[in-house]
């Protein structure tokens, strides 16, 4: 090959790299491992995990442990899906494209919106993009408001995205019942968008009908976010309540927690805002013979065409995670999602009631789903330690997220937790 190219060795092949730019030593990396020595090494790393898959983790806070049917990793691991690039050549990527079109459709139905895109990186960055989209639609307006009952990490990501802009983010407090206090909105007239999460970080289901009315009354867009899409099997979808942009984390639908990623930024909006929406979109069209097919479309919104005038800089999406989510939605079906949501709800309520009876203090009286906050008068960390010895991770202390919440704990229960485990937690608290 050197002869064909007309160079004598690799050095000559790289002659355009100036001497002064050269990597002049050997990279200091471990010696290459074989497949077998890699197995040993990674298994050592895994054994450092103090909390193992045998533990029951009663923490949600943005990532949720749900059963994943064996069909999903099996089919989604097919390399035709996994090792394909972005479907730039639609005729040889109809699998990915039809899968994305179905994902957009099921997601739009789930969220109650007209259109959903082919995904954002995660729920948190999706919220930041939704607020920027609200400002694009709101044109001259420079301010947005977010509820402090939104996941603290979501709000941190919003701050990051807004840091270099001259837009202002106003925070809305929450009421004693754990839902967002919208009373201050009445005095506002220049908010482009107001964001709420439901169920919110405390598990509280917001009254979205009332919220949308209050937000629309001041001429702002309602951005509804979420971290647990399972809730829409039971509670009204944000879009059906009139939310203008709906975004959130879709990890619950068939993806493992995997230390927080990859997950899935679900994102949808009302039809009239679609040209302001960030992210890829797949549309239906026809081929030369009039046969149905699917392509990436409306790319004039996107960076590779519009460059600095694009609706976002986003390029990669969460690809295989979108197909995973629609395979999960299809596997559960409408009937199954309702049943699964109810099961999650009943189990969580069981633990909540049990803990309250055992002496914990309820913090928020509003309706919750999958998660709830309780306060313990004595030092709960001792009980937590005891439960940890029994293989149960009991709740997340909220002190680091909300000052004054040092004795408050956020619990999460899903369909994966048997009643016996919940009984152990209740009886340990009772002692």
């Amino acid at each position, binding site marked *: 090959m050197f002869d064909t190219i007309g160079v004598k060795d690799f050095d000559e092949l790289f002659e*355009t790299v100036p001497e002064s730019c050269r990597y002049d030593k050997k*990279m200091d990396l471990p010696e290459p491992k074989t497949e077998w020595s890699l197995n040993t090494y990674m298994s050592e790393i895994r054994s450092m995990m103090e909390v193992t898959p045998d533990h029951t983790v009663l923490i949600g806070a943005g990532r949720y442990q749900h059963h994943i049917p064996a069909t999903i990793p099996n089919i989604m691991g097919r390399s035709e*899906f996994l090792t394909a690039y972005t479907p730039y050549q639609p005729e040889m990527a109809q699998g*990915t494209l039809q899968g994305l079109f179905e994902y957009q459709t099921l997601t739009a139905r789930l969220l109650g919106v007209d259109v959903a895109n082919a995904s954002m990186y995660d729920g948190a960055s999706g919220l930041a993009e939704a607020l920027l989209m609200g400002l694009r639609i709101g044109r001259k307006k420079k301010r947005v408001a977010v509820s402090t009952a939104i996941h603290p990490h979501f709000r941190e990501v919003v701050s990051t995205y807004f840091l270099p802009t001259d837009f202002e983010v106003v925070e809305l407090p929450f009421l004693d019942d754990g839902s967002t206090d919208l009373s201050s909105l009445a005095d506002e007239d220049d908010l482009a968008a107001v964001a709420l999460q439901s169920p919110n970080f405390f598990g509280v289901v917001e009254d979205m009908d009332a919220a949308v009315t209050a937000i629309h009354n001041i001429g702002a867009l309602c951005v509804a976010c979420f971290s647990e899409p399972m809730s829409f099997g039971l509670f009204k979808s944000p879009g059906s309540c009139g939310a203008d942009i709906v975004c959130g984390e879709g990890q619950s639908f068939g993806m493992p927690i*995997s*230390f927080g990623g990859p997950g899935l930024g679900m994102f949808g909006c009302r039809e009239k805002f679609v040209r302001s929406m960030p992210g890829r979109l797949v549309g239906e069209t026809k081929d030369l013979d009039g046969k149905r097919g*699917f392509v990436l479309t409306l790319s004039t919104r996107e960076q590779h065409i519009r460059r600095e005038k694009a609706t976002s800089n986003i390029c990669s999406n969460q690809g295989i995670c979108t197909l995973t989510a629609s395979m999960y939605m299809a596997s559960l079906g409408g009937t199954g999602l309702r049943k699964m949501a109810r099961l999650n709800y*009943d189990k969580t309520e069981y633990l909540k009631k049990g803990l309250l009876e055992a002496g914990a203090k309820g913090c928020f009286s509003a309706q919750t789903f999958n998660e709830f906050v309780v306060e313990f008068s004595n030092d709960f960390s001792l009980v937590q330690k005891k439960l940890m010895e029994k293989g149960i991770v009991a709740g997340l202390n909220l002190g680091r997220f909300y000052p004054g919440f040092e004795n408050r704990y956020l619990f999460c229960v899903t369909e994966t937790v048997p009643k016996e485990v919940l009984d152990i937690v209740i009886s340990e608290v009772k002692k």
Partner: protein
Amino acid sequence: MDEPLLWERGKKGRNGMSIPESDVPVSSINENLCGEGPDFPDLSEVEVVRHYTRLSQWNFGIDTGMYPLGSCTMKYNPKINEKHAGAVEITAAHPMLDDEYCQGTLRIIYELQNYLAEITGLDVVSVQPAAGAHGELAGMLIFEAYHRSKGKKRTKILMPDTAHGTNPASAALCGYKPIPIKSGDRGILNVEQIRELMDDETAGIMITNPNTLGLFEQNIREIAEIVHDKGGLVYGDGANMNAVMGIADMKKCGVDVLHLNLHKTFSTPHGGGGPGAGPVCVIEELAKFLPAPRVEFDGEMYRLESDRPESVGRMHCFHGNYGVLVRALCYILTMGAENLKKATQYAVLNASYIKVKLKGHLHLAYDRPCMHEVVFSDKKQLEFKVTTLDIAKRLMDTGYHPPTIYFPLVVPGAIMIEPTETESLEELDTFVEVVKEIVREAETTPELLRNAPQRFKVKRLDETQAARKPCLCG
């Protein structure tokens, strides 16, 4: 065989996965908040499995065949990496656990941070950005934070015309106005032009190196000096890092901030568009601005750092696309320093070979020593009224994924070929023969190209119609 859409299948009451029986009492609920639940189809397990299996058969992946998609580094993705990313100890790990309970998952981040620093030559790394463009955004936020810390906001940024579209879009998110720079007649940046345009209103420059013409920006050090002298920073788009591992030291090139695409250079699968990962690497002076939290090691414990007040903040709810990070670490561990460099050498060797072999057949945009990719165009075929698009579609019928087409924009009708290091000489030779045959067909039977592809589920699709009357939801 066609496969209907999900909701054109199934029957109410069917179920495709088991749902546990309830072992707790039914609780009361506020009915005012309740809804009907979404209108999803109900399908059986076998219906779902057959649906997606059929869909997969209409796809083409790197496991199916050669995928010389320029700028995308479609190299083979080793299967062992999938196994480790999917290990149950990793997939079950909750990101809200206290550090002491998840030392293993933190260590993986820590090691990857260090190795990526070593490979790029830069000092400190954050693995949080979830994709290349997300890494660029992190980089631009760092630019902005740096200039703010110096007490002066800057308003412009220099942007070569060979830049990926994400570059100007990322800069715009941070309020920078991109100032376009034309590449010189040799396809690389001209030092004098940078000297003229760089001023103290300009935050710096975004350089892809090697650039999107597959050429190494030979003047990068001089350019960096000019930018630094005016108080600016140099951003390196590391999407093409596969061309220079162990060859170029980004710090010595004068780069201050660089993002990597783990789903390109570090061989994690693309998943039909994602998830990717776009770690951002910086020089020591800028470490305080990196996204937080990073993972630190105090000699005994791996910890999420808690206090870095000048950080641009959090970019992802947790640690980015963690599963992708595990795969990339496994790739680095199995390759080692020597093989990473070898991967780069073979990637450049393969691209150079294709350049020489196809040069007389397709128009070569810049006849200069190329790196990992080479850009041709349809200039010679236009006289037969055959376009780049026709050539690409015809290639599909022969069992190859087409190259990247119509990019970079500076070459009209661009055909950008990146074979990567994982294709053998035989595979390259076959590919070259196939392209030559298509070039012959362009003269003799051009309608064959214009009517391609023929061997797929659908023929050429009407993209104009799709955009004019969007149907985005079934």
